[in-house]
């Protein structure tokens, strides 16, 4: 179907030359899902652009990109127009941005159907509804008239898939289709691509930076590094026994819910100005020797395998240490809190509710429904849940950025925001109290002021606290050393930073005022996997400080497991399970926790891993919280009692869960497995 042969793309612009791709060759056959994996800047998107003939200006491509025998690089305008959509269709990375904001999504789909499948208007509208249903959009008829801004992230991605399949392409390309989606949705979306390959015999090219999460649905994977293919082979085998050091590094950087520690790979990908003459990974590779530095390894099939090839002088053969249990007792954070909860609580939340009122009239969105938390110094709390479950509201509540509708919140014993029936500090005292809690944001570059230097940004909390210039400089220098950043970075502006550097700056800014509490709000979800591993190392180090408490919010369960002491699982604004992190992850009690863990990708994935195996029946946005258990609408084990009775947290062993059926669950799951 798709066959790329020796594709090289060089981008020449005044004062800049980039070798985006060098000698890339691989093929995708009909009915096959191929994963294209690597860090950003590795050339993944460039491959996608080359396939649809949309290379950026100033680029010069050599080699051949054959789609059904025709070379895309040599097509004239008419042939390209016919090829785009019908030959190959892309699902774009940011679906909400890729949908036109001023046209209903139904019309956008109809446009594709009438263009590529020669349907009449009415017939196309009917087909559009069917396509929407096929990708799992409920009340599809109504959704046809929706606009892009009315869709959630997962829904927008589904629409994007339906748009791409609506072109009836021979080749379906998905560019990072699951970035920013939570685990349950990721699985569902990836399944859609597998489905497209299986039922319609389409060739699917799946582009991602996260090998572990896409490997499950792929037949084969191709690993790109600095514009070169370093390894390609059957997905299951590459995942189990990756042979190229870079593939191993990629896999090791991904935290795993099994508790395997993250191994960060130092350094960053080089930006090549021309095709490399040595191994591009040489600077970061532990196995590199003189040969690697002087010659570029040829791509050769691995001995004794049919379809597995790699470009390395030192192929590794050992399986990645995925199956091994975590090295005993290295909860990096808070070794100090083994005993009873300490006297002084840094963060206390008592039955807090947050309701966002709608602008006019009554009603509103109930974001938090009675959350009680207590966090002592040195403790690290992980907060997990799907998007929309109230995680970010919890962060805002802790920071004093939203007021609780009822209940109380105190940081270091003080209220940061107006609360029912409590005094709160004002003016200077309030400002001082606010410095006790700091936030690290999800978008590292967006959270720094674009017009201030890094140095100014880091020193800002100190200036607010009224420290002298000399003292400020000393504190900034100290925190910079801790983040392993060079002093020269202080004079730079945010747009000159890489994502990893910017997030280190964000952490430095939070840390510099020596707060009692740091809230990390999805600090790594916008970063590449290898950078993510480096940042997680830094965060683990910060969270281990004995006199500070940390809250780590993430939809990625695996990142939480790395260093949190305790974990709470949020669902629709309620805590459904809480307990020590290993207990919750190894022996989950609540059906929701089981479902979350079941959806999380595991390395060396043995399907149906222990304890999990719960499949939720609907998407979050379609379930409304009824009077009883909030999960009732989605839980496969729901009974009438669940629907009517509010569930309180009850102790089961070391953890607590808000579900009365916990003791019966293992038996129920067993039965479900027999009769699906």
């Amino acid at each position, binding site marked *: 179907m798709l066959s790329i042969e020796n594709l090289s793309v060089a981008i020449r612009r005044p004062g800049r030359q980039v070798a985006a791709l060098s000698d890339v060759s691989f093929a995708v056959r009909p009915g096959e899902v191929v994963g294209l994996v690597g860090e950003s800047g590795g050339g993944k998107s460039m491959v996608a652009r080359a396939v*649809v003939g*949309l290379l950026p200006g100033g680029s010069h491509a050599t080699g051949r990109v054959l789609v059904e025998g025709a070379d895309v690089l040599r097509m004239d305008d008419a042939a390209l*127009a*016919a*090829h*785009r*959509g*019908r030959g190959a*269709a*892309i699902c*774009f990375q*940011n679906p909400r*941005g*890729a*949908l*036109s*904001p*001023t*046209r209903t999504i139904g*019309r*956008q789909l109809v*446009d*594709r159907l009438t*263009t*590529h499948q020669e349907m009449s208007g009415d017939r196309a509208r009917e087909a559009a509804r069917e396509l929407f249903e096929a990708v799992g959009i409920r009340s599809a008829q109504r959704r046809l008239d929706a*606009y*892009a*801004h009315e869709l959630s992230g997962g829904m927008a991605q589904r629409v*994007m898939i339906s*748009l*791409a399949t609506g*072109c009836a392409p021979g080749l379906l390309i998905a560019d990072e289709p699951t970035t920013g989606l939570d685990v349950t949705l990721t699985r569902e979306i990836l399944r859609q691509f597998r489905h497209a390959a299986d039922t319609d015999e389409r060739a699917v090219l799946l582009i991602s930076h996260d090998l572990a999460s896409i490997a499950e649905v792929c037949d084969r994977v191709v690993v790109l590094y600095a514009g070169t293919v370093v390894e390609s082979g059957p997905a299951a085998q590459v995942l189990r026994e990756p042979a190229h050091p870079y593939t191993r590094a990629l896999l090791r950087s991904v935290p795993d819910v099994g508790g395997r520690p993250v191994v960060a790979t130092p350094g960053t990908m080089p930006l090549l100005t021309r095709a490399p003459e040595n191994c591009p990974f040489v600077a970061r590779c532990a196995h590199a020797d003189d040969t690697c530095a002087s010659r570029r390894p040829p791509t050769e099939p691995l001995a004794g395998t049919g379809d597995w090839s790699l470009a390395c002088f030192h192929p590794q053969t050992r399986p990645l240490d995925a199956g091994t249990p975590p090295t005993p007792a290295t909860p990096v954070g808070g070794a100090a809190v083994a005993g009873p909860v300490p006297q002084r609580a840094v963060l206390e939340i008592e039955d807090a509710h947050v309701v966002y009122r709608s602008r006019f009239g009554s009603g509103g969105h109930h974001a938090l429904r009675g959350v009680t938390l207590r966090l002592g110094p040195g403790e690290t709390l992980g907060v997990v849940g799907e998007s929309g479950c109230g995680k970010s509201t919890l962060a805002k509540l802790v920071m004093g950025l939203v007021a609780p509708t009822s209940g109380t919140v105190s940081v270091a014993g003080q209220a940061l925001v107006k609360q029912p029936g409590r005094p709160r500090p004002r003016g200077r005292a309030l400002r001082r109290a606010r410095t006790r809690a700091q936030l690290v944001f999800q978008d590292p570059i967006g959270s720094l002021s674009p017009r201030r230097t890094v140095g100014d940004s880091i020193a800002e909390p100190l200036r607010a606290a009224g420290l002298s210039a000399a003292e400020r400089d000393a504190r900034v220098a100290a925190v910079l050393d801790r983040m392993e950043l060079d002093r020269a970075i202080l004079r730079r502006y945010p747009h000159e930073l890489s994502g990893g550097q910017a997030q280190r700056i964000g952490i430095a800014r939070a840390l510099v005022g020596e707060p009692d509490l740091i809230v990390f709000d999805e600090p790594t979800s916008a970063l590449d996997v290898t950078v993510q591993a480096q940042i997680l190392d830094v965060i683990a180090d910060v969270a281990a400080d004995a006199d500070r408490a940390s809250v780590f919010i993430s939809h990625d369960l695996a990142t939480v497991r790395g260093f949190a002491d305790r974990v709470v699982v949020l669902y629709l604004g309620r805590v459904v399970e809480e307990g020590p992190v290993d207990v919750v992850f190894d022996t989950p009690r609540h059906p929701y926790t089981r479902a979350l863990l079941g959806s999380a990708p595991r390395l060396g994935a043995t399907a149906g891993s222990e304890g999990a195996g719960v499949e939720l029946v609907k998407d979050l946005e379609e379930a409304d919280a009824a009077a009883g258990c909030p999960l009732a609408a989605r839980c496969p084990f729901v009974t009438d009692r669940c629907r009517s009775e509010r569930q309180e947290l009850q102790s089961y062993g070391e953890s607590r869960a808000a579900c009365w059926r916990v003791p019966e669950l293992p038996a129920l799951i067993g039965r479900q497995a027999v009769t699906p």
Partner: protein
Amino acid sequence: MRIFRFVIRRLLQLIPVLLGVVLLAFLLVRVLPGDPVRSILGPNATEEDAAAARARFGLDRSLWQQFLDYLGGLLTGDFGTSIQSGSSVGSEMALRVGPTLELVVISVTIALVVATTLGIWSAKRANRVGDHSVRMFALAGNSVPEFWLGLVLVLVGYSILGWFPAPNGRVDPDTNLTPLTGADLVDAVLTANGPAIASATAYLVLPVLTLVVGVVAPLLRSVRASALEVLHSESYAAAKAHGLRDRTLHRGYLLRATLVRLPSLAALVFGTAIGSTVLVEYVYSWQGFGQWALRGLLYRDYPVVQASVLLIALCYVLVFLIADVVHAILDPRVRL
């Protein structure tokens, strides 16, 4: 339905706005140096004559009293009596508004169509010869003073080519046009007066052209900028990568997304155009609202100035209301 509620709410907001405008106009015109009574009396009038004239126009009473009288008159639709002409300001204004509105509305409409077409055309050829020349011409037109452009157009279009009538009115009096609204083209169409339609159109061409050239540049610039933004947007790239036809792309994915930001600028331009008409009307002897308001101001004809300020304010508010509604219709993300 929501748009209807929004319009009602905005129309209710109009009342305090206009009250404020009335008060400000009333005070400011009296703060200006100059005496309206002196300007009608002539050089030999005595103090007694002046006092008598003041009493005739009620200018001898306290400011407060005058304002209440004026306000009471407004409520019954009475704009007062012109000091200069002695006739009713309301009926004078009614005569003058039509021609000017006709001029401005036609000009701004043509300017919008031209700007949209050329702006998108130009954005599709960004940084090529066509794009640069369109922008240069627009900029040059914008830089030329309207009265000068008007004179040049008269010179070329009437004196040299002889294609258009002399700048001496709005319609040929021989066509026996019955005035209804004051807007001659509209009247001609309403009375199905064929020769009058031709004549009014011919008279309109040059002044409309003058105004269009004056206002098209900012509109064009804005359309081109937002069209470029849309062309470079992810959503357009996605539609293109899915191989949609050029016509579908243009109509469905470029046009509406580009026009989203135009209405508020168009409203501003409409306001500017009302201001520009003063000079254009002067050049073409249009006998419109702008000329009338200017003369009122020069002679400190209080009721005329107040009435014209009030009318311009009303126009502004209504045009911006229309712009907001159009914006909301174009852009589904806007909530009213």
